[in-house]
């Protein structure tokens, strides 16, 4: 194993061993901490009032609109990251291509702005 897979073996190790190390102290808690559970204790915190209804309520659509605009602008970076690497080699041609790309997207941003997709109402 070498090259790219080896590089990412480190990443995988960080993910797996990291989770293990992060979970390890739980063993200490399991050994040391007291355990007693009764329904009053497990009540969720609602400023001292007994919780009413379900916490899993529905939320406003504006969260979705921000997520949506984010996702669509996040797609751009697929193309911009490789562009940054070859920009110096390819010169003005690459710049003009990216200019067109971003101007088109700016139209989209302007539309979202005009239509109030970016308003917290």
């Amino acid at each position, binding site marked *: 194993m070498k090259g790219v897979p080896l590089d990412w073996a480190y990443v995988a190790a960080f993910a797996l061993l990291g989770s293990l190390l992060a979970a390890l102290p739980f063993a200490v808690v399991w050994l040391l901490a007291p355990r007693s559970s009764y329904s009053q204790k497990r009540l969720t915190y609602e400023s001292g009032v007994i919780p009413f209804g379900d916490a899993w309520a529905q939320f406003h*659509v504006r969260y*979705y609109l921000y997520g*949506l605009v984010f*996702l*669509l602008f*996040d*797609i751009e970076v*697929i193309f911009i990251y490789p562009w940054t690497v070859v920009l110096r080699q390819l010169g003005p041609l690459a710049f003009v291509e990216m200019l067109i790309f971003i101007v088109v997207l700016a139209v989209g941003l302007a539309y979202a702005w005009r239509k109030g997709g970016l308003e917290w109402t």
Partner: protein
Amino acid sequence: MIGLGHYLVSGALLFAVGLFAVLTRRSAVAILMGIELMLNAANINFVAFTKFVSPELVRGHIAALVVIALAACEAAVGLALVISAYRHLETVQVDEINLMKW
């Protein structure tokens, strides 16, 4: 030694699971998730073919990246439709959204 065949089989199995989700799930969001699984399965094949069949021009990588972009667009519009349907019909279960049926 892991070869092309391994990746293709794995992709095919993932595709089948995604298809199963699309065919049997009632919730529209879950169906979208099934579609994402299928798109991922296709992407595995693109990238695997790039490595084993024509590596020089990374054509498969380009295809996979465009597919990821399309998947994101699809998810955005699909989920917008789900939200709109939920607002009007108060359900996201596709077999209950049958206004056009009767």
